[in-house]
């Protein structure tokens, strides 16, 4: 079962790399924010899996909860910060 958890964790890392494409090459700032949000929500599950691999779930579940909260606050703050940026519509065509 530990091998299965390791395989699932590696699969999640691969999917995070796929979302990383949108972070790096996203046409606008908000596309990058979408990619960061997707990676952050996958990281919560990854932390729980690391806890099962080290057999310290009681500690890692608190870290995962704190990470979910920090991810939420970070996305809210970033979207409040970027909502006055002009020229996003023209930017979105330069792929």
């Amino acid at each position, binding site marked *: *079962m530990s091998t*299965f958890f390791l395989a*699932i964790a590696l*699969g*999640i890392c691969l*999917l995070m790399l*796929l*979302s990383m*494409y*949108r972070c790096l090459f996203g046409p*606008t700032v*908000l*596309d990058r*924010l*979408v*990619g960061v*949000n*997707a990676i952050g*929500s*996958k990281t*919560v*599950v990854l932390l*729980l*899996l690391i806890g*099962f691999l080290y057999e310290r*779930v*009681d500690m890692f*579940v*608190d870290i*995962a*909860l704190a990470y*979910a*909260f920090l991810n*939420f606050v970070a*996305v*809210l703050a970033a*979207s*409040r910060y*970027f*909502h*006055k*940026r*002009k020229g*996003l*519509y*023209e930017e*979105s*065509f330069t792929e």
Partner: protein
Amino acid sequence: MATLLNGISIFFMAMGLLFFLGGAVGIIRMPDFYSRLHPAGKLDTLGIMAMVIGLVVYNLHHLSLAAVLVSIKMLLIVFFVFMSSPTATHSIVDAGMRAGLRPWTQKSRSGKNHLKAGKGE
């Protein structure tokens, strides 16, 4: 009994990985910003729910007070993500709307060449 619980756990976690895969492919392949938020907002939430349910079933192998408390905390993470993920998605959409980012249409697609020519009317 343990084999059955392992099977249920493996089923839920494979399902969660499938949802995550759909979300990642949708984020890469969708044509514009607003349609990219659709897989990012929904499939990630459902993927987290399936994954954590699989982990909870595995964690409740040896029934004790500590295991039950840890499982309740994991379900608390699911509850919090179900509250926070739609709020974050709505906030990103609101930022796009306030910044004047218009949704994708076929017309704006043909306007792509127009903008590339650099002759704004």
